[in-house]
């Protein structure tokens, strides 16, 4: 019995269905050779994971938005905004308050969700194009935090806040744990709840969803709130890593978040996507970056390589969906 199952699995194995996993393995093999022997060192691997975790967490929420048929360009500005305001909030509690840190974490999550809700309301209730709405809020969040900080760095006065972002737990940095936990939760939400089911149906065909008694306004609203929440997590992780926020921080996060989702197989036209895929996509982006550094390639070329990878990923998607 068991043997038959394995045989039939490999008989029906099609590269097309596993292209992401294949690409992942091939990439690791290449990186191992290019970066020999440093790439495989635990310290390097945890470093890669830490680097990708900040945009990685946001890309998880972004995946849901893209599945719903939308996009969120404001996440980078929002992260700087939420991070900055949260440090102002933290500083109210004085230099040694642990309670302050806990409350600040919660505050950032609520503020992030609220910012996301702002985007969500305009998209779902007022039926505006997500691209335009979030292009607007991208500008608004960035401008506000520059105003509040007088264009200077916002420093935290709390002595312990920095530990949150730089400590390790069971061998992995805290932000990586956040990435994994948020990822697993959203994976379950996407694949095992009615909301996840409605989300894909709405992204695939809004009319069908409407005629199937699904409240599409809520289904299109929630992904923005969830993304705001993930931005809140990232804002705390990033600001606590440096114990400060610079008003120009987190610029371009939207690109990395969208890239991870697309590389992970999420359709830009909506209706289909995978959280696990996005997590792999984020890690792959990190490995590519790491490999370029180790291979001694100019840092200025890294963005070009990233752009190339995104285009190839979309090209593969396009070809697959046409067959």
């Amino acid at each position: 019995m068991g043997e038959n199952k394995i045989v039939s699995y490999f008989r029906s194995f099609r590269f097309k269905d596993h292209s992401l996993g294949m690409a992942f393995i091939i990439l690791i093999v290449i990186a191992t050779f290019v970066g020999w022997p440093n790439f495989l060192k635990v310290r390097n691997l945890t470093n890669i994971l830490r680097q990708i975790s900040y945009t990685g967490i946001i890309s998880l929420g972004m995946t849901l938005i893209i599945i719903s048929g939308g996009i969120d360009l404001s996440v980078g500005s929002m992260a700087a905004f939420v991070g900055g305001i949260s440090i102002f909030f933290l500083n109210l509690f004085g230099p040694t308050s642990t309670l302050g840190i806990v409350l600040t974490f919660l505050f950032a999550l609520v503020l992030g969700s609220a910012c996301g809700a702002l985007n969500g309301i305009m998209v779902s209730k007022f039926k505006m194009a997500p691209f335009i709405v979030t292009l607007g809020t991208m500008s608004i969040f960035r401008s506000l935090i520059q105003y509040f900080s007088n264009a200077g760095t916002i420093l935290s006065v709390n002595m312990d806040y920095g530990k949150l972002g730089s400590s390790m737990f069971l061998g992995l940095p805290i932000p990586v744990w956040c990435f994994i936990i948020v990822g697993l939760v959203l994976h379950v939400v996407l694949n095992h709840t009615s909301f996840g089911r409605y989300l894909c149906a709405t992204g695939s065909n809004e009319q069908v969803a409407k005629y199937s008694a699904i409240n599409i306004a809520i289904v299109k609203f929630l992904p923005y709130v969830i993304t705001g929440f993930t931005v809140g997590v990232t804002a705390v992780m990033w600001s606590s890593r440096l114990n400060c926020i610079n008003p120009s921080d987190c610029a371009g996060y939207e690109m990395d978040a969208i890239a991870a989702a697309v590389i992970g197989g999420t359709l830009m036209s909506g209706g289909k996507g995978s959280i696990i895929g996005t997590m792999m996509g984020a890690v792959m982006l990190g490995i590519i970056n790491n490999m370029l550094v180790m291979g001694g390639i100019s840092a200025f070329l890294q963005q070009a390589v990233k752009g190339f990878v995104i285009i190839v990923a979309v090209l593969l998607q396009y070809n697959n969906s046409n067959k």
Partner: protein
Amino acid sequence: MGEPTILLDLEGIVKEFSSVRVLDRVSFGIQAGEIMGLIGENGAGKSTLIKIISGIYQKTDGVIRLGGKTTEIPDYITAKKLGIGIVPQEFNLINYLTVYENIFLGSELHKGLLLDKASMRSEAGAQLKMLKMPLDVNKHVSELSVAEKQMVEIAKAMILDARILIFDEPTTTLTAVEVQTLFDLMRKLKQKGVTMIFVSHKLQEILTICDRVTVLRDGKLVSVDRVEDLTTQTLAKKMVGRDFNQVFPDKIDSTGKSNILEVENLSSGSVIKDISFTLRKGEILGFAGLVGAGRTETMEALMGLRKAEKGSVRIQGKTVKIRSTKDAVAHGLGYISEDRQGKGIVMNYDIPKNISLISLKEKYLKRGLIDKAKEDEASEHYIKEFRIVAASKKSQLRFFSGGNQQKVYLSRWMDTDPSILILDEPTRGIDINSKKEIYEFIHRLAEAEISCIIISSEMEEIIGMCNRVYVMREGRMAGCLEKEQVTEENIVFQATGIKKV
């Protein structure tokens, strides 16, 4: 009179999709100036064949001769230049462009470097006038009804001075009167010497309009006959490959049964005005009328899909307020839309996901998460009950034939345990076997005391299934016909407002 000249000659046409043979050595010739019918069940290869002729697909093997010369048709543009026009089944119109811009799309008239809009407008207008469709050429296509869009498609194919015009199931979206207009037009074109290929599911239409009929079955040519030598019975037999007797089950008499649904003075915007009707328990009620008469809109208002300003709805004697589709479902109403692909099924979902879409929260949650085993089990049940043919229940719906998609769509609504099921054009674009199965299924529902409303533009469907028929005209209720009154004549009179002589 010599031998009629063969304009388009097909010889040994073979088409394979990833080594699956969908057309197997099909050979026949089409004479200049005739209307050739092309008939067959879904999957028989009709669509593939006309796509090869119009350059959308490439044949795997075989020869096409056009006017005696061997011709390759590598793409759609070449077909156009050769004078082969196609009126597609699914509309290829751009909603944001106007009628005349759509008609001239890809073959715009120029004055120097600029577009000659004035000539395009007047030519498009003249073309539509000939189609007896006085449409405003400056209207946007998004504002048109389904039937009007089709007329635009026909005008678009005609504007190229096509020698060969292919109609791919043009009547599926038209009402009886509009079909007549189309047929008149086809006869006029025939006089002008245009050769036509008419693809249809409807036997009667084929026999009415065509000179000869080609029957395909499972990708193979069955026969080419003159229509004089055929009856609907013999044609159906050739198509299905076995005897095909009665399509409709016996009618159900619901006289004297209590009303389950009473609708009074339902109004919504300018589309429907003061609609009142009743539905009895276990009844199969018909809704007839021309396209655009407001039948679909009435049901959408009832289902909470469209805002109703006025009107009361009573279900089993109790007045209910339906503000959303969710409310309607909770009150036991179900609505199967006429637009199966646009409003019905989720194309990239498999069978279980499609079936559980509405009943997900009520039936398939276990501690907040989806119980996929239970979903699969339910799907197995419906696959058996409706005889859904699928490679696997995990295959996506976009790979299914129209009939199987419709069965999955039906299953989804059956899974909500409705007491009232509204079926809007339930057999549009599906093959005759699936049609029969769906009729039998509706019959079984009514026997189980579930009330059904059928909206249909196919007169024979309404007459064959319903004992009571409401007829709508221009957003209002024109009348109600019962038992012996349910005839084609009476329905047409009421639907068009022309009094009986």
